[in-house]
């Protein structure tokens, strides 16, 4: 796991397929779906770095996503900054939220971190409604400018961001830092006995995770051209967590596949109307029940294994 060779071929094939799909089909609807899938993938990998590796589950990733999106919304529409300021600003704001949440709760054992994250995202959603004069309430902030006018170019921008983020997080996960995070998942007391300041590593990982999720939130705001309190909803966090579980926790690349699969699945099931959510949930339960290690990462590893055997 830790010293596995990087699967460059797999990565190149994945990027090529994602890049060629909209060229082949020339379909605006497909480009839109793929853009959303890439944004969800950014959220899923960022969740996986902190929570997948350390096992400290974050039930409020929506806090960072919403914080990033609203930062973009305010900067761009209220204060009139260029859209390109949104991403760095969203990362800073989301990082501050991460420090604020991580500092008191990640020092404690038990479910405090998961619960505090969940509550904080719900509170933020309520605050967006309470301060409707500034935040637009239920309507949110409208009139966010597009970062790039061409939808296809914006998709490529999002895809490039996803590739950079995933490569960066894979590098972290494979470094000594990643080894420490996996050790924290194994046993916190043993980590302390090994001389490691586990609180520092957990908070720093949450900051990285939050900053990237915030960047994804800003990209989402500039895609939807609008932000709404729904971003802070619990269902946003749960969707991201489900994508990670389907993809294969702690593998980093798995959640990318999980996010794309589930976004596409959601679109395919749109015709089923009211049945869609139920079918979706059953598919999820089946995957979680029968494939506790996830779906994408193990299947990919088996596929690679069979390739290796047949070629050698």
């Amino acid at each position, binding site marked *: 796991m*830790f010293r596995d060779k990087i699967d460059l071929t797999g990565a190149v094939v994945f990027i090529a397929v994602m890049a060629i799909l909209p060229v082949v089909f020339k379909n605006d609807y497909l480009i839109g779906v793929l853009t959303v899938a890439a944004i969800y993938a950014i959220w899923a990998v960022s969740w996986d770095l902190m929570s997948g590796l350390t096992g400290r589950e974050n039930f409020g990733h929506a806090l960072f996503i919403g914080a990033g999106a609203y930062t973009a919304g305010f900067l761009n529409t209220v204060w009139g900054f260029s859209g390109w300021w949104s991403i760095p600003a969203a990362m800073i704001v989301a990082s501050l939220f991460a420090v604020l949440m991580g500092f008191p709760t990640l020092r404690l054992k038990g479910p405090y971190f998961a619960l505090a994250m969940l509550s904080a995202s719900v509170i933020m959603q309520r605050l967006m409604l309470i301060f409707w004069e500034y935040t637009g309430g239920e309507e949110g902030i409208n009139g966010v400018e597009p970062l790039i006018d061409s939808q296809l170019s914006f998709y490529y921008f999002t895809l490039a961001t996803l590739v950079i983020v995933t490569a960066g997080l894979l590098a972290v996960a494979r470094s*000594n830092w990643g*080894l*420490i995070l*996996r*050790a924290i*998942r*194994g*046993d916190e*007391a*043993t*980590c*302390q*006995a*090994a*001389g*490691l*300041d*586990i609180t520092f590593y957990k908070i720093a990982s949450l900051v990285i995770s939050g900053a990237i999720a915030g960047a994804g939130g800003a990209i989402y705001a500039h895609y939807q051209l609008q932000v709404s309190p729904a971003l802070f909803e619990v269902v946003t966090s749960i969707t991201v967590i489900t994508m990670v579980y389907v993809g294969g926790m702690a593998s980093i690349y798995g959640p990318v596949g999980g996010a794309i699969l589930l976004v596409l699945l959601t679109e395919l099931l749109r015709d089923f109307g009211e049945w869609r959510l139920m079918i979706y949930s059953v598919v999820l339960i089946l995957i979680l029940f029968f494939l506790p290690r996830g779906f994408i990462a193990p299947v990919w590893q088996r596929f690679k294994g069979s390739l290796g055997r047949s070629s050698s």
Partner: protein
Amino acid sequence: MRGATVLQVANLTKRFGGLVAVNDVSFDVRTGEIVGVLGPNGAGKTTLYNLLTGFIPPDEGTIRFMGGELRGMAPHKIVRLGVSRTFQLCRPFVGMTVLENVLVGCLAQPVPPQGREARARELVEQVGLAGKEGLAVEVMSYGDQRRLEIARALATGPKLLLLDEPFAGLGSGEIADLSALIRRIHTESGLTVMLIEHKLHEFMKLVDRVIALDFGELIADDVPERIVTHPRVVEAYIGGAAPDPQEEA
């Protein structure tokens, strides 16, 4: 072999509600000693370790290690000063290999000249696990897990090594092997060692001196030969926990 005082514990006390787990305990450990900590279950042995390593804060008393006060320090800082421990129940990092487990212990230390991974390999070899570097820890025998715990503790570069019941759950052959390993590490690297155990034959042969605890109090501090006949130690072990005469030195 015995040098200056490396650890000086004075009037150490820890209460859990009404229970006094460690009661006014004072003792010294000198450089190069192997000191045994003896006592029936619930005597406060592991609590004493938890106090020494910062895992729980003491209510009263002082812990001086190489002249500096450890009380109030975070566990990882105490480790970096050179006090390393193992746990009574093996707590390896599940899902990681033997080498990765030891490597984690090297990460809080400055990079050694040969590099961290090479250092971890040396330690795996030193504790007799050569060839098992790539093994998943969950498939290892209990005896091997104990060796792994020791390798991980050594990786932090300790001056004082605290072993918590290293022989628990092992067969007599494994106990002899592990005892030889501890002795070898002690002589090779000049480590000062403390180890918690019950009154085992091997244990008594291994240690230079024994600190006996009962109900949180230090009841004896003497060489092993005199400990086994010490009236308060004998009294503490009377009843179901009485020492097995065949196992006595």
